[in-house]
């Protein structure tokens, strides 16, 4: 049978030794969205040995216009898991791991350490700075791509001691200053092109060929075909400041922490819900008329029972804060059907009274 990598093997710049480099490489793609989908598709086809896909989101109808790994059958299912299923059919030789949870300052070191290189396919500054700082601390290459309407930016950070994201943009913008795709719209092909640029840079780095976009920001405007590459220097002050921290510190712009929160007015009282109360036993009010499981965080009970819950899980506490953190933990364990309640126990108590049978 013909070798599936024949067209790579024919290239002097790749050949059998280059293909072996690709097979031995490992890439983590954070965000299986507009950028991540096309990057993942080509990296899988190219035969990257180990691919990690991290995304906490589920596929929604508005994703299908540009996120080309998903079908209508995937609606409501986790993106990382669906992407893995699709990609496995393209190339069964690639080991693919799905991480159906978010990258956080608590798990970033462990997750990124497993891979040679990270592709940033996210849509928010919180995760971009997190990937950047963690890659800097672990000395991993980060292939950055981002877009605005018909324009895209591509560059490579931390390549052979080169500049980092903070050398370009030292501090994140204030919340809401820069809109993302879900707020302003994007022509579907634009992330496709930028994501493929990212996959191209990743393969060139793995193959050790060509000129890498390190210290160079490529700006592409697909409406007028203006492609400009801007040089930018390393900023040792910014890099040293991160290195001195020794661990990543989350930025204040939490523009992505809205996904798994539900508000009472989004719920129908008839829906089967398992309510998890993560407060301590002495906190009041206690909740009547609902299917509540008490789960005081101080007791450090086993999370095992949550794995097989067929009901939707909604976690609540006094203010919503502990619930949010607990849901993140559950999602890291692969439990997807869980959300935190935006309101606190007092509001829930009133809602429960009002909606009792």
């Amino acid at each position, binding site marked *: 049978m013909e070798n599936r990598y024949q067209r790579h093997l024919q290239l002097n710049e790749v050949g059998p030794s280059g293909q072996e480099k690709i097979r031995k490489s490992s890439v983590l793609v954070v965000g299986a969205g507009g950028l991540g989908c096309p990057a993942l598709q080509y990296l899988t086809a190219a035969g990257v040995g180990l691919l990690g896909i991290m995304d906490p989101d589920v596929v929604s109808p508005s994703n299908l216009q540009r996120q080309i790994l998903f079908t209508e059958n995937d609606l409501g299912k986790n993106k990382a898991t669906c992407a893995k299923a699709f990609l496995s059919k393209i190339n069964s030789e690639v080991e693919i791991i799905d991480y159906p949870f978010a990258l956080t300052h608590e798990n970033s070191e462990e997750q990124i350490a497993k891979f040679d290189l990270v592709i940033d396919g996210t849509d928010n500054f919180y995760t971009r700075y997190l990937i950047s700082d963690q890659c800097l601390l672990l000395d991993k290459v980060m292939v950055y791509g*981002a877009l605005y309407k018909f324009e895209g930016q591509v560059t490579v950070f931390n390549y052979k001691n080169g500049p980092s994201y903070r050398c*370009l943009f030292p501090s994140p*913008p204030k919340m809401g200053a820069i*809109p*993302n795709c879900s707020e302003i719209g994007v022509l579907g092909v634009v992330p496709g092109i930028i994501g493929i640029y990212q996959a191209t840079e990743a393969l060139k780095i793995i193959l050790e060929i060509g000129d890498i976009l390190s210290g160079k920001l490529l700006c592409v405007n697909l409406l007028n075909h203006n492609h400009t590459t801007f040089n930018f220097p390393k900023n040792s002050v910014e890099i040293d400041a991160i290195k001195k921290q020794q661990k990543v510190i989350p930025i204040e712009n939490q523009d992505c922490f809205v996904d798994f929160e539900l508000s009472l007015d989004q719920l129908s009282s008839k829906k089967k819900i398992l309510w998890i109360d993560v407060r301590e036993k002495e906190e009041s009010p206690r909740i009547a008329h609902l299917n509540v499981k008490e789960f005081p965080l101080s007791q450090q009970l086993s999370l095992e029972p949550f794995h097989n819950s067929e009901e939707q899980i909604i976690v609540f506490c006094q203010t919503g804060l502990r619930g949010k953190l607990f849901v993140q933990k559950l999602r890291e364990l692969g439990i997807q059907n869980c959300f935190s309640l935006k309101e606190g126990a007092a509001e829930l108590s009133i809602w429960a009274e009002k909606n009792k049978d």
Partner: protein
Amino acid sequence: MGLRVRYFGQLQEITGKKEESLTGVFGTIGNLRAHLIRCYPGLEKIHFKIAQDNTIDIDSSEVNGTLIDLLPPFSGG
């Protein structure tokens, strides 16, 4: 000496322009930034970078190029 100033991404909407020509003596990149923010106050909340002749430069550098590009961070993916 005339400067050709180009706006990227969201900055085109804030300024209402894709590009423009500026005349005057600005001294440093930082002074040029301040001048542009006075002309377009909406620029102030954006942490944009300024490149001259295709190199991103710091605010303390002298303006000695002819092509100035204003680059905002992008977040979309």
